[in-house]
């Protein structure tokens, strides 16, 4: 029984760890912190694995990961990669990687709660309802936080880049 359970979890882990590590990185902006958040989330899921249904495992993992991120922000323990100033133009001209870095930097300027909504909604590509479940809040709250988060993101996005 234990063997079957571990095999199921191993399959789940292998298929998803990198994706959730990237989602965590979008949340916190730091690869080592993202690794810790993802690892901690999978550990918690493993401890609950006998009670987790496979079809709802992703939703549970998203909830655990998001709450772990928000907890670190509340405790001030996150070593978020700080960007003092978003660059005016993408480094290296028109390269996609550079655009990503500008976007990532702007995202880090959004408050953590709104940032979590934006990441789940647009990075993880979840529906409004799924985000509400993951964050344990209402659909209306998700919508309002999304609107505010996008406004904050646009405000943090460099003017010169926006006008290109």
């Amino acid at each position, binding site marked *: 029984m234990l063997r079957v359970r571990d095999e199921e979890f191993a399959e789940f882990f292998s298929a998803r760890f990198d994706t959730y590590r*990237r989602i965590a990185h979008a949340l916190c902006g730091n*690869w080592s912190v993202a*690794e810790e958040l993802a690892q901690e989330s*999978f*550990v918690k899921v493993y401890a609950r694995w006998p009670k987790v249904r496979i079809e709802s495992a992703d939703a549970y993992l998203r909830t655990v990961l998001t709450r772990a991120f928000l907890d670190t922000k509340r405790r001030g323990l996150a070593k978020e990669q700080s960007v003092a100033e978003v660059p005016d133009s993408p480094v290296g001209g028109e390269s*996609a990687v550079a655009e990503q870095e500008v976007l990532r930097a702007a995202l880090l300027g959004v408050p953590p709660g709104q940032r979590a909504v934006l*990441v789940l909604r*647009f990075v993880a590509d979840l529906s409004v309802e799924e985000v509400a479940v993951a964050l344990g809040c209402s659909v209306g709250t998700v919508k309002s936080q999304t609107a505010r988060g*996008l406004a904050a993101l646009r405000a943090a996005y460099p003017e010169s880049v*926006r006008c290109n």
Partner: protein
Amino acid sequence: MQLDEGALSTLLDGPAPAPTTTLAVVVRRGRRQVHLRALSVATVVVLVIGMVSGFVVVAASPPVSPPVAAGKELDWPQVDVRPPWMRTVRASAPAVPDPLLGPDPVSACPTGVQPQLAFTSIETTDLLKVQTALVRALPETKVGTWQGVSSISLTGTGGVTNIVELDLTDSDGVASFSISRGSFTGSATDYATALAFVDGNCAAPKRRTTSEGTVIQVYPPVPEANQVVRMKARVFWPDGKVLILEARNVRVSAYSARVGMPSVFDGGPVRYSLPMTERQLGEVAELYAAA
């Protein structure tokens, strides 16, 4: 570049450092977490069981006796007037009353005719022994001098010295102690048993038999009319002599000393407490019997 929310989805792509977390690390940490959780649950369960058990033990334990009662009562066994075969059956029977075995001798008032004592004169040695015993057993009490109080013949033979009395004075006031003497035939134990409820007491007296065969029987306090309370002890000698020791909360008149007559105050302020405890009365009787 026009910023739209769709651009955020590109953040999942792009270069990233190789992950350092392996499945083995996650499984090992996960199992440790499972064990810690199980340990926490077990600890809580043990604590709850311990608290519940402790509560049950405390709740089920018998109530603590009031400190006043402790040390005031004799630890002698109560007299059991039933035949031996009844006592044996009773010992293994449940505590509920058994209609076949009769009432509990400790709590039931007896019925039937009880033997009468033949009263005799009190000897001087008895007066000295009892007075000495009172002084030793009641160090805080002022023990008065004997005086004959009865000029009325009690049941049986006797005269003016059938009953003598002295005052016992303590912080509660003046109380009284008297002795009288009688004789009986037969064994001391049988006669003591026959007189187990002679004072109208519903609770059985407590008994101790000395190595010489003297039976000392201490009776519970018995309230009477006019707020008089009597507590008696009887000492049955194997040679047929019996001495009756009686403590009272007040002095009563010679008239009420007669058997069956209601108590009447002999004047003086009313006192409600007896001048000694059951244990002290037993000690007086023991000292007297041993003297």
